């Protein structure tokens, strides 16, 4: 059963994996997006994620449901918002399926689609200030 959540605390990957690890599944594929210490040639100190929460949750659920029907798998997506430190997970997608090909495909399609269609934005804090990331653009943040 597809599931999607927006959370403000650490994402527990094993708990999500357990949701798609029924005995009928021979494969569980997990994608973890985590905060990287550099971006576009600059160091990054930490990220802050902001979301249009109700719409983001709906969009993530639609993506999980669509992946389930396309690949006959089970999908759970969790996105963390607020301040996230280096190396911590910002998004986790788990896909469980009887065979591995479907789980890999579903996982990849979910993260690619999430990046396009889920209303979440990040702000990067770097040595030269804090910037909103909007697609390819970086825009200086005021606060």
């Amino acid at each position, binding site marked *: 059963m597809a599931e999607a959540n927006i959370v403000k605390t650490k994402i527990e990957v094993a708990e999500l994996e357990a949701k798609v690890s029924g005995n009928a599944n021979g494969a569980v594929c997990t994608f973890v997006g985590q905060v990287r210490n550099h971006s576009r040639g600059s160091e990054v100190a930490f990220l802050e994620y902001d979301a*249009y929460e109700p719409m983001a949750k709906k969009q993530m659920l639609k993506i999980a449901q669509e992946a389930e029907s396309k690949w006959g798998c089970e999908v759970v997506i969790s*996105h963390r918002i607020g301040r996230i430190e280096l190396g911590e997970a910002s998004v986790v997608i788990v896909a469980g399926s009887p065979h591995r090909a479907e789980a890999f495909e579903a996982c990849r399609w979910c993260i690619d689609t999430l990046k396009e269609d889920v*209303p*979440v934005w990040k702000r990067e804090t770097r040595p030269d200030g804090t910037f909103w*990331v909007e*697609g390819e653009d970086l825009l200086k943040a005021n*606060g």
Partner: protein
Amino acid sequence: MKVTVLLFGHYRELADGGELMVEVNEGTTVHSLADTLINRFSALAGIMTHCRFAVNEEFAPLNASLAENDVVAVLPPMSGG
């Protein structure tokens, strides 16, 4: 009639909490609401080319008609994940 406009990304900093109440005529579309916003706030000049829009939490085309109390979100290119 009144609609609520929600601003996101760097546009959020333009209004307190990123939220505006806007008075528009009956039958206003997303497109004409965007024009109204651009006329009122020069900082929003880029939204027509730069942003997608949602009405009541669903993506909406520019020609979508608005109703009283609709919530219209201005969505710059996303950067989740």
